[in-house]
């Protein structure tokens, strides 16, 4: 397994480089203009000058190479500098966003806390709710609990966040006035009271997001458990006199985890990616909102950098999932 992991990690480097090239080409090909949001009152010649100032005049391969150098060579230096107070990166041009004319990575770092708070919490909450629901629904298939769970999760999944988000805002912010409708990203948690404030502003986006994730996870958990509950080894285990708890929670669960692990591994990069619509609705302004505004403004360095970071996470977590398969089911071999 170790050699497999190492081999995959080495292989990840060319994969990621190829992905970054594909992303770059895709963004180049996509129609759009970084000057689209500049008002129509600014004449075309001025817009052209502004484009030149952004470096759009240079040929494609030069810009790609620049990005590669900036991202893989200069940005790590900046990181080292900020950790050890050295000055390797002095005078080097970092990856600069076209919208803000500031280093992309600084903004990303600025956005991570709120994304982790909201999307991360939603994921944890969803996993904590979904797994027990899935397990119990499968164990008592077609009981009222299962039926209710199915109903709620399917409705929850079919209602898009652009609607459910607004609905909870209207109920809890406008009518009841319990929670703020706008997330304050500058809020700092320092004591109990400020923690309560943080909870209040988190609760609605977390609710909306967790509903979606729970629905998805619990369905896969339930289906997978159902597949395994009727297997012969379960009968054997019961026949051996193992307690029902051990049978279900150890034997069946372990064998049912593969699809669930896959779904969770697919979801973790999405945590960092943020939840675009939910973040928009609640003005969380995390990474998801950063990405969508960058796409709308055609801020290519920003989009390129963000999507590349997601690509790294996707490759990484899919690798982790593959390793986990091997641990969950030792018969799975990769070499």
């Amino acid at each position: 397994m170790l050699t497999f992991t190492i081999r995959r990690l080495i292989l990840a480097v060319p994969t990621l480089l190829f992905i970054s090239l594909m992303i770059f080409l895709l963004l180049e090909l996509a129609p759009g203009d970084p000057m689209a949001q500049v008002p129509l009152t600014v004449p075309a010649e001025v817009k052209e000058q502004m484009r030149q100032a952004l470096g759009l005049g240079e040929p494609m391969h030069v810009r790609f190479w620049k990005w590669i150098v900036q991202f893989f060579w200069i940005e790590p230096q900046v990181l080292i500098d900020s950790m050890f107070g050295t000055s390797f990166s002095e005078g080097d041009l970092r990856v600069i966003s076209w919208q803000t004319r500031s280093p992309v990575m600084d903004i990303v770092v600025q956005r991570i806390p709120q994304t982790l708070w909201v999307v991360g919490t939603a994921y944890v909450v969803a996993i904590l709710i979904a797994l027990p629901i899935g397990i119990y629904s499968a164990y008592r298939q077609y009981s009222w609990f299962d039926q209710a769970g199915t109903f709620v999760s399917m409705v929850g999944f079919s209602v898009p966040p652009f609607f459910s988000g607004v609905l909870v805002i209207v109920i809890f912010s406008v009518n009841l006035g319990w929670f703020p409708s706008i997330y304050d990203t500058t809020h700092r948690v320092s004591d109990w009271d400020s923690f309560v404030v943080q909870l209040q502003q988190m609760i609605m986006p977390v609710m909306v997001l967790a509903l979606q994730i729970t629905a998805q996870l619990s369905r896969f958990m339930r289906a997978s458990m159902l597949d395994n509950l009727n297997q012969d080894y379960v009968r054997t285990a019961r026949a051996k006199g193992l307690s029902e708890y051990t049978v279900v929670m150890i034997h069946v669960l372990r064998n049912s985890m593969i699809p669930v692990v896959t779904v969770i591994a697919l979801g973790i990069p999405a945590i960092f990616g943020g939840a675009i619509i939910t973040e928009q609705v609640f003005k969380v302004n995390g990474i998801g909102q950063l990405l969508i505004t960058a796409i709308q403004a055609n801020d290519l360095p920003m989009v390129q950098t963000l999507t590349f970071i997601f690509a790294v996470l996707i490759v990484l977590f899919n690798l982790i999932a593959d390793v986990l398969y091997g641990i969950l089911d030792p018969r799975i071999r990769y070499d």
Partner: protein
Amino acid sequence: MKIKALVLGAVAGLALAPAAFAERGSDGQVNIIYWQAPSILNPFLSGGTKDVEASSMIIEPLARYNEEGKIVPWLVEEVPTVENGGVSEDLTQITWKITPGITWSDGTPFTSEDVKFTYEYCTHPEGGCAQVTKFEGVESVETPDEHTVVVTFDEPKPFPYGPFVGGESPIIQAAQFADCLGAKAPECTEANFNPIGTGPFKVVEFRPNDVITMEANENFRDPAKPAFASVTFKGGGDATAAGRAVMETGEFDYAWNLQLAPEVLAQMEEGGKGVAVAGFGPLVERLMLNNTNPDPSLGPDERSVVRPHPFLSDPAVYRAMSMAIDRPLLVEIGYGKAGKVTCNWVPAPEVYAADIEGCETQDIEGAKALLDEAGITDTDGDGIREKDGVPLKVVYQTSTNAVRQDFQALIKQWWSEIGIETELRNINASVFFGGDPGSPDTFQKFYADVQMYANTFNGTDPQSYFGNGLCDKAPRPETQWQGENISRFCSEEYDALHRTLTQTADADKRAEIGQQLNRMMFERGGMIPLVHRGRLSAHSNTLGGVVLNVWDSELWNVADWYRKEGS
């Protein structure tokens, strides 16, 4: 009175300040929400309205427009004119006298050198300055002494108030931006995010595309202002949410540009925490008529380039199309109190607006009669009229936006009643308004027969805006599809009349020519104006001093804002 107080504040001191806000920072915190988040606080590098307005709380121009569109002195003692000797007789020179005693928020004095530096910064050839048109025709900016700025133009300017006037042309500090000229401009993140200004507030923290925290500028020229000690300027979300936060939940005090259905707005106002206010600039929602042939079977260099359009060039057709539209209904459905019926391309300032008959009433029968008379009838019985065998089928495109899609549906129905078939298309705004020459869906390419959008101009002088109707400004392949004459309108008379306008200095004559140009554009099939749109913003009931200004930044008088008593 307020403006005077602001300008003379440093000199006259407390005496002129209204009693309501006697002390700086006494009213605590004010929350502003813009649903488009500012991404930079240097308007020279962005040009986006959100960025210009956010930065207008921090950096200021020498003079700006007030809510009536009049120029008022801001950092200067008076507005230079020919009468007071500030503008030379030959209209090539304007002399600004800076009010003595103004300081930057870091305490250093504000001098004419800063003004000159701003000119150099923006006109640097490698800088890519978004506001460079403000300095069009400027030959030199000189500083005889530290309170005098002399701007010389290369030709007589009947309207010399381009440079350093209005929210788009503020003064930045020479000391802060000295190393940020030209290609280095984007590297100055610190300066671009935290500009030092002369305005009532200064930046504490700027989070791009998210939130700005500001606090009162302790070196502001009026010691009694601003009334608020700190500002939270949040960005992001959508107009509905912003309106809700001000009028229904009361979390925010001011929300910008709420383009919402009138009903939704009315419902929000019932929330009782705030009110919506509207102001009208020259923004007009219009239908542009393609004067060239957009037939897809034409090659890329001929499509929307060769003239004429197979049927839209017939006066009967475009007049009938205009007559079939019920403008009051459009206003009622789409804009409510933020809209007015208009048939003028430039409806404001009012002196330029022509009085066009029949604009208010829909006349389907009249439109039919007009088409019948012109011999454009339905010859093959499919319900669609033909002109010389070409059926009247139009492609009608616009950007994606709920109100615009409602308009499309309504207009499609009205046109079908007079025998014109319409295919609707909506395009992602960032593609539609983006000038990407590789995309077929930009509004400049205009690969459709009719398209709808809104446009406006800055300041109060429409001369260069009227220039958008000139023949040689039509977008075409040779110009990389750039150019402002989107409808490809072309008329020798129009071009001649516009030339006269550029040579006329007399205000009444200019107004008269403006009216004629307006009329010509409408009656000769350049466009069908639909709605004169206002800017609609909302403020909470407890926020006082808001004066909605459509000619300048909405936050132009934020120094005068205060918290109302009893709240």
